[in-house]
């Protein structure tokens, strides 16, 4: 996979040079960035959420810090949303 990356990049660039960058492709790219970042945030929250629930189960005072820590990766999605507004 990794050793093929330059070749893959060349193919992509050639394909891109022949394409007309239209409104639709830009929107599709933005959609992709939001979707992927949401996936990444979800993956990050999986671990943090599990740990937070563990900490809350032991001591319910940890609820607020646990909640804040759990939603921190959500900033990833907000940054991706910026892309939507600037295209």
């Amino acid at each position, binding site marked *: 996979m990794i050793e093929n990356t330059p070749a893959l990049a060349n193919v992509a660039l050639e394909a891109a040079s022949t394409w007309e960058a239209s409104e639709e492709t830009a929107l599709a790219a933005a959609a992709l960035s939001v979707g992927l970042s949401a996936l990444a945030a979800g993956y990050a929250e999986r*671990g943090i959420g*599990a*740990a*937070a629930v*563990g*900490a809350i*189960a*032991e*001591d319910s005072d940890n609820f607020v810090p646990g909640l804040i820590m759990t939603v921190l990766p959500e900033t990833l999605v907000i940054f991706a949303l910026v892309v939507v507004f600037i295209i």
Partner: protein
Amino acid sequence: MMRGASNTEYVSARVRTRRAALFADEDYRKLVRMGPSGIARFMEESEYEREINELGTRFSGVDLIEYALNRNLAKHFGDLLEWSEGRIYDLVARYLRKFDVWNVKTVIRGIYTDTPPEEIRTDLIRAGELDDSTVDLLLEVDTIEDVIEVLDGTVYHDPLENASEEYEETGALIPLENALDREFYEHLLEDLGRPEEGPDAKYVEFLEAEIDFRNARNALRLARSGADLDPASYYIEGGVLFDESELSQLVADPDGLIDHIADNRRYGDRLSGAISRLRDADSLIEFEHALDAALLQYADTLSSIYPVSVSSVLSYILAKEREVENIRAIARGREVGLSESEIEEELVIL
């Protein structure tokens, strides 16, 4: 081996909270000055509240403390198994099997000395993988053959059966107990291989350290007791510190044994403090406590390298065991009237 997603994060978070709730070293200094009833009252205001209240009507004094400690230990370690899923369950369960080994040994010793089942029951720590019904069945049987029969289907059946011939010839329990210990340690490292990096490598490293220290301890006991026993029959495979022939030689030479540990690349630097204590220690007890402290420190170091891994669970298990042993030593020491400084020598304090 169990497959599937494991919830390491959840287990580590819970374990770390419980780790923080353990008694601090200052608490031990307070406890050393109390009598058994004072210790029980102190425990009632801490983690052990429920156990002390449940058992308080039936027992008193040191017995109350001891049973409360055992029950609390079993509760916490049972919790560990209940929370963990997938691979981390497998890794934790392997280690907690040492309580199964302890229980089976206790039952066998009880049968050997004709102790009534009720008394054996109070000495069991139900923290292992054997379920309660199996343990109860073990308590009901009268002969060692029946114990082996009840364990049919568990990992202990075959080694015990092999050892039982030797037991019948000699009438001594040592072959059975050795068979159990070996079975436990062999399963510990089973199908883990030798991973080079990552949390698994640290887990293996820790278990190797435990095996090494167990070997060192056995060697020292043999050396001090002067008993004419073959060191090779106590040797546990899997460690990196000794091989079988080295251990046999070092049994005759305790200073050489300590030098051997200090020269080791893996333990030498990290354990330098503990090793200097080992050199100063005259009594075997101090030596063993220094080893315990060293193992505990080692587990802590490993758990800070990979905070979210099975290492943190192991370090909690060790710390909890140390707490239980320390409180028991204080209570027993007060009961027989040892002085405060004598009791403090019995404690494993970092």
